[in-house]
């Protein structure tokens, strides 16, 4: 997969989960079933998840649902926190919305 993946952790062991694919802005990407949407995008090098009203890039920040910086559209539903949603096979994610 990508160079950000930790395949074998010295204390925690091999990475859990199975491979799957999802669609991000009409591009198919690989992920693991244990990824959150934010994690899958991060591992694939997509750091900008949305834009502020003035057009500034925003991305994953708190990682635990508090800051709302990671909002994306998931399967047509806008405003979902990418850091709280687990990926599913065939899921459709849209990034870059202004909010």
């Amino acid at each position, binding site marked *: 997969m990508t160079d950000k993946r930790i395949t074998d*952790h010295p204390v925690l062991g091999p990475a859990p989960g199975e491979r799957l694919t999802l669609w991000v802005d009409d591009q198919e990407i690989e992920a693991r079933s244990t990824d959150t949407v934010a994690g899958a995008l991060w591992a694939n090098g997509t750091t900008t998840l949305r834009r502020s009203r003035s057009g500034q890039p925003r991305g994953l920040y708190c*990682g635990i649902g508090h800051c709302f910086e990671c909002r994306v559209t998931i399967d047509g539903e806008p405003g979902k926190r990418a850091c709280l949603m687990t990926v599913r096979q065939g899921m459709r994610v849209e990034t870059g919305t202004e909010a």
Partner: protein
Amino acid sequence: MDADVIVIGAGPAGLTAATTAARDAGARVVLVDENERIGGRLPGQLYRHKDTWVIGARTAERLAEEAAEAGVEILSGHQVWSCEPGWRVRLESSRTLTAPKVVVATGAAERPLPMPGWTLPGTLAIGAVQQLVQVQRILPGRRVAVVGTDPLAMTAAEEITLAGGEVVGIFMPSGEPGQHAESSPRKVLHSLSGFASAAPAAWQRLGARMLRNRAIAAAAARLMPPSGIPIGEAKLKVRHRAEAILGAGKVEALRIRKVSAQGVPVGDSREIPVDAVCLSGGLYPLQELTTGNCSLVEVPEVGGLVPLHSPELRTTAPGLYVAGNVTGIEGAAVAERQGALAGTALAADLGAYRDPGARLREAAAQVELARAEAVLTFLPGIFSGRRRLSELWEAHAAPGSQSEGKASDDA
């Protein structure tokens, strides 16, 4: 009524509170959490304790099994919007749950550490790093800078290097307005004493314990090598502060500058190329759901505004209990024992025990034991903060007291 008890938050505190109430009182317990995975902050935790590793994910699994065995109904992936006397717990999905008793165990949140460039994608808080590395097994970056001075900044640096990333250094915050973290080397060394038993090498443990003495911490800050103190494979740069995060569209570098032992900048600034910056601004209790429902008190030694509570974790509102980091910032082992204590108080109020006094004393002793043996101490003044909280409760509970007025009802 939908249940006898609703517990909000499935971290170590909420899980044990739910298990204890269900098991000891045979209560019908619903446990609600906004995450799909239960365990609260536990699954992201990994740090050294003497020669072993504390693996939060294992504890989370054990606590989840115990809750399932006790018959606790778990409602995960549901955020709670509000909680009103009665008790009515309103969920994001506009569904409402009702029960005569509620336990609020919502944990803690991170204080932001604002500095120029901190909204650039690639700037991550501790929670994000823990979730990426330990839970999803993804590196935050290949070359990462950590900014912060609390024990979580140190554990994050160790977690990243352990997983194969490079940590270019752990830097002091710049101390600008809006930052809550310590920025003078002297104060930093004092606050680092809380990291004592998790420090990897024996000499470091000894050093950290000595730093609890303010005078020694001050002397150490003057002697501190500008190259930094080793924390695992990373270096704590007490003599360098982070001034700005730089990059076009994403993090590309951190600008740092040398400071004196008093925290005054000396010399020119320098840019270090990195692909991620991890910020650690410290934690505060997440008490929003208790606001307006019971008295709250501001106690900086425990992390800020917390619900006023009895030693058994009852609040000033009948049927409302609290447990875990919502009552003050401490480690996971303390939160777990606090959950058992709140669950015991709740079961006692439901008439579950023949000798409730003995059960409560035993559960309270377990909390104290965990507190005394804590691997990470987040706030150096936690013991005096806890004493202050008991005094405030005694003043409130004293017959004819006017203390309701002293405790602020909201903030």
